[in-house]
């Protein structure tokens, strides 16, 4: 029933979206530190997506919100920009995993390993860490090197993806999930212990200080700059996603996802197709890893645990695997929930505790409820919305248009010879 009700509304009126954006933007401008106003602005992206107007208008509106309104209204607030760039990092990662899980149907539980590969690639060579195993005092590199390292991170992670994928992709289904999980753990353990015999990753102490990016002598040290860097990477990844989705390779991925055997019989090379998905997804994670390392200026193996992999998987599945807007929504929702809503809630509980109204043990801090929330979300999504919040749309061919087209008039080949006899 709810479905029918939803269908009868043909999108949200444009005027409503505009009022929403203006309302929340001014609210954020005048009421400083209003979390709700900031969330309202972020939510306006979804409204724009469902707005009842042409694609062009929606694109311009979305770009205006992301490139102008958010930086103008919230740009001087470090905290909001921090949240926004964090959301962006996870959106980019989720879009990368979407290629592996959503398009190709390969359940990868070790995705964060590729993220780690990118982050460590930049971290090791941009700090003095690399001097430990490369002779000559060549390092640390300056922040200018951040830009070429975006490409290096991409390549390193893609190589990692192929190296892991080559053996792993021979198994499939739930076995693949377990094997990638094991691989993720192996990578984490190795990064955690690779401080001997040769000190490469500096082990559990992690690597610091990782230089922040520089461009024409400007040091990009605040979250404000990272917001833009992440935004451009996302735009690049979204375009890549769309292009892939409708390419020959993308259709091969979907075919493999739907039925491996049938796809193979139609001449699709299983190994190449799956490897391409693995490497593409991994390379996006590598780029984001470089940005992450530069943003945090410190990395250690605790940032690359199984929890992170599961978190990104939750984003993809909650939003709708294979659906680009869905994955963006899922990633934004889960990140905001984690970094903002739960934190606010625990601050609220802390204030209650300080005034002596309630007494909570420290272990019940809501910001530590990640696993519970992920667990409940996964179960509920599996039971009630296995295709996610915004399910992927299949491109449908309009049969009537094909029949009506001027090319479909004359019969071709052997049929054209039959034409006379038929009538």
């Amino acid at each position, binding site marked *: 029933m709810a479905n029918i009700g939803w269908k009868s509304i043909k999108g949200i009126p444009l005027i409503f979206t505009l009022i929403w954006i203006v309302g929340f933007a001014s609210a954020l401008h005048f009421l400083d530190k209003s979390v709700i106003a900031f969330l309202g602005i972020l939510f306006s992206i979804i409204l724009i997506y469902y707005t009842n107007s042409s694609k062009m208008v929606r694109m311009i509106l979305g770009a205006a919100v992301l490139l102008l309104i958010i930086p103008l209204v919230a740009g001087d607030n470090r905290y909001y920009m921090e949240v926004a760039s964090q959301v962006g990092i996870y959106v980019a990662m989720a879009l990368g995993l979407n290629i592996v899980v959503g398009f190709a149907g390969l*359940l990868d539980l070790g995705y964060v390993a590729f993220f780690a590969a990118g982050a460590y690639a930049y971290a090791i060579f941009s700090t003095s860490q690399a001097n430990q195993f490369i002779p000559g005092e060549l390092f640390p590199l300056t922040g200018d090197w951040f830009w070429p390292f975006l490409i290096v991170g991409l390549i390193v992670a893609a190589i990692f993806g192929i190296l892991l994928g080559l053996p792993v992709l021979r198994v499939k*289904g739930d076995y693949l999930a377990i094997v990638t999980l094991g691989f993720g*753990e*192996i990578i984490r353990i190795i990064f955690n212990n690779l401080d*001997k015999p040769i000190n490469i990753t500096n082990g559990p102490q992690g690597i610091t200080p990782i230089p922040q990016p520089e461009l024409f002598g400007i040091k990009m040290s605040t979250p404000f700059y990272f917001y833009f860097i992440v935004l451009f990477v996302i735009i690049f990844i979204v375009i890549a996603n769309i292009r892939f989705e409708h390419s020959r390779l993308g259709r091969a991925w979907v075919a493999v996802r739907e039925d491996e055997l049938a796809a193979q019989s139609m001449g699709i090379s299983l190994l190449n197709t799956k490897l391409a998905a693995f490497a593409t997804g991994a390379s996006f994670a590598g780029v984001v890893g470089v940005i992450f390392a530069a943003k945090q200026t410190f990395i250690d193996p605790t940032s690359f645990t199984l929890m992170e992999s599961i978190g990104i998987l939750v984003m993809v599945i909650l939003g709708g695997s294979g659906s680009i807007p869905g994955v963006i929504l899922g990633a934004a929702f889960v990140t905001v929930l984690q970094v903002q809503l739960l934190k606010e809630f625990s601050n609220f509980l802390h204030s209650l505790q300080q005034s002596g109204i309630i007494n909570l043990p420290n272990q019940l801090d809501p910001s530590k409820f990640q696993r519970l929330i992920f667990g409940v979300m*996964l*179960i509920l999504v599996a039971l009630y919305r296995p295709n996610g919040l915004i399910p992927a749309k299949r491109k449908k061919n309009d049969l009537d248009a094909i029949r009506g087209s001027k090319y479909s008039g004359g019969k071709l080949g052997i049929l054209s010879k039959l034409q006379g006899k038929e009538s």
Partner: protein
Amino acid sequence: MLSILPQVIVDGLTLGFMYAVVALGYTMVYGILEFINFAHGEIFMVGAFIGTEVLLISDSLGALQGMNPYVAFFMTLVISMALTGGLGVLIERIAYRPLRGAPRLVPLISAIGVSFLLQDLVRFTEAIARNEFYLNTPALFSGSVSLGFASIPTKGLIVIILAIVMMIALTLFIGKTKWGIAMRAVAQDQSTASLMTINVDKVIMLTFLIGSSLGGATGVLFSQNYGTIDPYIGFILGLKAFTAAVLGGIGNLRGAMVGGVLLGLLESLSGAYMGPLTGGAFGAEYKDVFAFSILILVLLFKPEGLFGEAVKEKV
């Protein structure tokens, strides 16, 4: 270096039998539903917590004083098995049964969800009840039996004996009883089995009941043997037990036992000797890497495991 070998082997056997019993749970469910019950490791963990709580509560009530440790242990075991068995059935009913016809990845996702949910629920409950979620289990057995070349603690001996008893009982149950035959029939073909008046739902429920109670029992054994438990022990141990099941040939009971013992021995040996053999470059911290590498290698080169039959793809 070789002088510690017998002790390493005894420790490896204890660990291995523990893996073996947990692996039985994976194998049973996989054999019947062709589905990896990801939450099985967490059921094991819940079993460990229930066992510890039973001992802690009865200790605080003064009931443990003067009680024969074997009686206390048996009581703990029975309570833990009953509760985890029920938990397994409940999970199946809520999170798996509605998904039985769904694509294969969907129940797997639900199972990952269950396992994360259980971890935090246990942490939550313990944090409220005891303000702490790392628990120390009261030790029931302290002595050890000398075998001449090595000494085996009584608790380790109990693990091995109980594991063997559980395996034999399970093998007999599946081989000889009516319910066991029904289970095998459902594993072969669910729809044909249901035509033969077998209640498939009930059989699957029974599978989860038995598998989960075995997991719970191992939890009690684990907490007795290692002394400290936390809500996160289930995950890695579950993964290794799954490795054991795959090593032996998943769906095969005997394979699970052999795989478990083999994995335990390998892990114990690598933990003890990898450091000295590589001159300290790769120490015991790599033993998990070792276990996972075995999983990957087996899946690559002998996916049917040591005892399983190769499965032909159905078209």
